[in-house]
């Protein structure tokens, strides 16, 4: 009997250790893979902390700010919210829906020069899809984005 009992104890303890290790691994991975959803104001308030962190920056594309260099495929524009503005740099052809004034979300991080380096560009997909009303505020800049 003692044989089986001690074997069970050993089995139980090794299971617990394995689960604890998995839990640690999971929490470590979680910590490293968090993507922050920020507005330009939050990004600028965070300052240096924003450098290197994975961030989804959501805002509106500023009027007259889109510049696309066909030779280098570099896309530059500015995203703004109610009060502040951030310059964004991305590589790649802007998608058809990408225009001035639309809601957009970029994923990437803040570079040292204060420009946001976007790896991914997502255009806000208008879920309710009525004709866009100029100046209409959407509550949540991250609501219904489509990956492109």
């Amino acid at each position, binding site marked *: 009997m003692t044989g089986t009992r001690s074997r069970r104890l050993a*089995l139980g303890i090794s*299971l617990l250790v394995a*689960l604890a290790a*998995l839990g640690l*691994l*999971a929490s470590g*991975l*979680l910590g*490293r*893979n*968090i*993507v*922050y*959803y*920020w507005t330009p104001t939050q990004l600028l308030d965070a300052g240096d902390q924003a450098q290197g962190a*994975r961030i*989804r920056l959501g805002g509106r594309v500023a009027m007259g700010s889109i510049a696309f260099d*066909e030779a280098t*495929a570099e896309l530059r524009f500015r995203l703004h919210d109610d009060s502040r503005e951030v310059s964004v740099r991305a590589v*790649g*052809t*802007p*998608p*058809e*829906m990408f225009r001035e004034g*639309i809601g957009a979300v970029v994923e990437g991080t803040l570079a040292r020069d204060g420009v946001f380096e976007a790896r991914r560009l997502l*255009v806000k*997909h*208008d*879920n309710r*899809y*009525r*004709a*866009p009303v100029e100046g209409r505020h959407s509550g949540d800049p*991250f*609501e*219904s*984005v*489509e*990956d*492109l």
Partner: protein
Amino acid sequence: MIPTAGNVLLFAAMVATGVLAAAGWVAGHRRSPGAADLARQAAWIAAILLSGATLLMEIALLGRDFSVSYVAQVGSRATPVWVTIASLWSSLDGSLLFWVFILGLWTASLARATRRADPDLAGWSLATMAGVQFFFLWLVLAAGRPFVRMDVIPPDGPGPNPLLQNHVLMAIHPPTLYIGFVGMAAPFSMAVASLLSGRLEADWLRTLRNHSLVVWGFLTIGILLGGWWSYEVLGWGGYWAWDPVENASLLPWLTLTAFFHALLLTERRGQFPGWTLTLVLVSFLLTLLGTFMTRSGVFNSVHSFTQSPIGPVFLAFIALVLLGVAFLLSARLGALERTGAPFTPISREGTFLLHNLVFLVFCCTVLLGTLYPLLNQALTGDQVSVGEPYFEAMGRPLALALVLLMGLGPALPWGRTPPGSLGRRLALPAVAGLLPGLVVIVVSGGTWLPLTVGLAAFSVAVSVQELAAPVRARMRASRRGLADGIATLAGLPRRVGAHVAHVGVAVMAVAIAASSSLEVQDEVTLSPEESVSWQGYTLTYLGEDVAQEGFRVAQRAWFAVRRGERDLGRLAPAMHHYARASQPIGTPAVRSTLGEDLYLSLLRIDPESKAAALRVYREPGVAWLWIGGALVALGGFVAAWPRRRRREVTP
């Protein structure tokens, strides 16, 4: 006319469901066969009434009756028939109606399955089902309200969300997933009945298993079709993004899969009956959580098309069910009799238990990653999401462990493994796994791909060995050749089903590993008539055209595809413009072969130069994902196939 009739039908269904609940309760409590019969009749009547209400809504949609509020909300005169039919589940109010309709059908199916069951089991399970049905009916009538008469009848409606109109899979994927999701209520009710009556006989377990297998088969197909839709419509070259809504469908699939394996322990060895039932109860809770996640709008997701105020009510319902389940388990678990055989670790049951554990850890991992943003927002107020690398890093080793156990389990015997027999059982599969693994190391390198290929080949070899064993035994006994040997497999649907599903999982694992580690993507811009060589293909941009497709305008970019000297035809990725959508919807074009897919996704066509910018993907092995998935679901259905009842042999 239709609004009134629809509401009358729904109210009548609610009354029938009330009768069902009461009669089921009496049948369960007093073991009354009469009450059980009444419950069964009520279940059928409710199912017919719900079918009537759903049919009425389809008639209203097809007849463009904009006096019905739901038709005014999602109907349109421009949509083709299939979009019009699929509009039923394109928005919250209609999808709730569709939901409760399927639930009604499952309740009727349960009523049919419990014809011969004892009145207490039949009664308790039907009463539980009625409780769930009552809640959803109440949601339809109180929150969904699809049949409201419009005061001002609009001349036309907006049609469903363009993303849902963009591919015909939207007509198939939601119903299949719903059948699986909603159907989970049936196994749940049966497990509750077992706990309440303290009984878990072989017959009841068989009914429970067969219902669960059908639910699982539909769930499998539904999840796959969702991935396929994502692949064919969203244009990012992938099929799974660890999106909350995708995870919501995966979670109950994981626990239900674990359940089938636990069930074998209970059926064959009488072990862990409580654990087996717990897995069913948890699976149902996870479908409720999944429904909440897709329908409440609290998650940012590409698949979530409805945002609604039903969140809090739903959360309360989940809490209620959770409390009920916890109470039932603590109060009634002791009532289940245990006649379990002693447990031995190095055996089939040992691997099954380990496998259950890995499934559970997998489930917790996905759940943690899915709910973390919500918890974080509640605690700190920050909006965050959990990136795919978390899921990939956690999921890959766990999935591989499962593939390994999938091979190891069936290779071991029940009970004690005779010393020395392990080598004989595993030698052939081990060789079968090592060889392809080594070949892949040489050809493509990497860690995950060769490991996946090796383990998958190992488990396929075990499955083949397990299916060959009865064939060989039969041939040796009857001496009538291979055909007769193979015919014996017809009498072993569970074994055949299990191994077909296992082979399917192995195929899927390889397809996922290949497509994720060998994918190549690029961005190219071509002027008309210009060609580009890419990954062995030659793409020539022929020019653009614009096609009127009735409900939409397709702006297509035509490409001639060649490989060496061989003409592979044309591909036309497009931008679809819907009349009421402010933005066009990109629609990729895919050339799919067994080896690899060529996937073109149009980014934009320059209005002046007509130059087309597109993203090109080479996706190896994706076709095998769908093939493997089809095998998995097929395995489930084969295993659920009723064995012919042997006539009682009376000497």
